[in-house]
């Protein structure tokens, strides 16, 4: 049986892993390559590298790190951040990324998902949506959660999937950094509507939050988190073990 995936997310700026809460107050954590290698050995099923660099020097540093990681870590690697064109896909795929996650780039350029899916296949294109409740509806936010696009989230995500996105990362801004559990209501609204894998992001604070996620929403395929893994509050091996104990298919590294 296919297992539910656990995915640590590494926000990378100037060659280091950072993490903040609610997208503000970033805090340096560790070396991305070492951390990726560590997670892989602990049983992470996949890794997300998010490039939050603004400068071109930083971008070069990021692709160097990506290349080094992909030559040492042999689990799937998704890259996001600063993906605005098909050339950006090319740049990170050449450095060893397996999937590319688009967020603001797909909002600015609605044809990006379609073009990339045609060129690299849907399995390569991940739509990452930062979503927040505004006036009783789910809204897509751009620019790292700072800008309300006015787009209704569910229909926007469905449109991206129709255009060829092969996976959806749903990041709830409302629960991000709060550590009181995933946004089950928002996740249900999306996973009921799409027939590609849905990755839950934002809000995990403890092992039980993942158990609740997969028990409540069997159509959610993966759980993503950052700081709880980076700060050792949740050990991936313990998480996998608890999942298995609760009857959730999990890949345990013994």
């Amino acid at each position, binding site marked *: *049986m*296919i*297992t539910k*995936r656990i995915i640590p997310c590494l926000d990378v700026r100037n060659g280091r892993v950072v993490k903040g809460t609610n997208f503000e107050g970033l805090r340096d954590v560790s070396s991305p390559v070492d951390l990726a290698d560590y997670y*892989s050995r602990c049983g992470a*099923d996949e890794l997300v590298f998010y490039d939050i660099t603004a400068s071109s020097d930083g971008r070069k540093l990021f692709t160097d790190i990506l*290349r080094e990681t*992909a*030559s*040492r870590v*042999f*689990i*799937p690697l998704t890259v996001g951040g600063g993906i605005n064109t098909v050339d950006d896909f090319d740049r990170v*795929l*050449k*450095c*060893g990324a*397996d999937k590319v996650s688009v967020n603001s780039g797909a909002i600015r350029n609605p044809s990006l998902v379609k073009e990339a899916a045609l060129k*690299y*296949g*849907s*399995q*390569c294109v991940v739509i990452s949506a930062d979503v927040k409740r505004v006036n009783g509806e789910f809204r897509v936010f751009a620019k790292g959660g700072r800008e309300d696009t006015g787009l209704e989230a569910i229909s926007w995500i469905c449109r991206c999937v129709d255009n060829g996105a*092969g*996976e959806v990362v749903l990041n709830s801004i409302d629960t991000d950094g709060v550590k009181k559990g995933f946004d089950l209501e928002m996740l249900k609204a999306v996973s009921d509507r799409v*027939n*590609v*894998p849905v990755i839950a992001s934002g809000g995990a604070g403890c092992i039980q939050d993942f158990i609740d996620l997969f028990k409540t929403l069997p159509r959610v*395929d*993966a759980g993503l988190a950052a700081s709880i893994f980076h700060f050792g509050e949740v050990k991936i091996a313990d998480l996998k073990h608890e999942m298995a104990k609760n009857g959730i298919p999990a*890949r345990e*590294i013994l």
Partner: protein
Amino acid sequence: MTAIIDYGVGNLFSLKSSFSAIGEEAVITKDISVLERADRLILPGVGAFRDARKALSESGLEEKVLELVKGGKPMMGICLGMQLLFEKDYEDGEYDGLGLIPGEVRPIREKIGDSLKIPQIGWNALIYKNPSKIFKYIKEGDFVYFVHSYHATGCETYTTAVTEYGANLTASVENGNVFGCQFHPEKSGDVGLNILRAFVEMK
């Protein structure tokens, strides 16, 4: 030395790196003399069958690859590279494969219910069907990473492992010196590296 056949599809960086990680020299190449010199070949592949099939034909490498493999050189097809090994493929039409292993490639959806998502993306367990040399350093139940919407069928005699995703889907095949993995050994952690380790022992 292992030659990774470069016929213009897919990203071969991880594949090459995975061989380095097990101490094996791997060369990404479209040079026929390198293919001849190699101890074994890897046939990679991602994307649509039709495009990959066309790229392989137009690369001018197909004839040489078939000649070398029929002459006994071990070859492993990975993901779409495995699907190319069969006789027929039914991805958006009907296409001839390389015919190195009897069987055909059909949509997973034909075999499983509507409730499961296509493609199968993620880690799933190997269920052994027949012994295989590439299982030397792994065990039944080990997890490997899959991304696929099509599966090989009608190849039971050559199927060495399946995986359960609504139905038993072909995970790996072997026919003499020809091997195929539907999953990605280069993305399957230590289990995947151990499969490649067994493969590079073959000459």
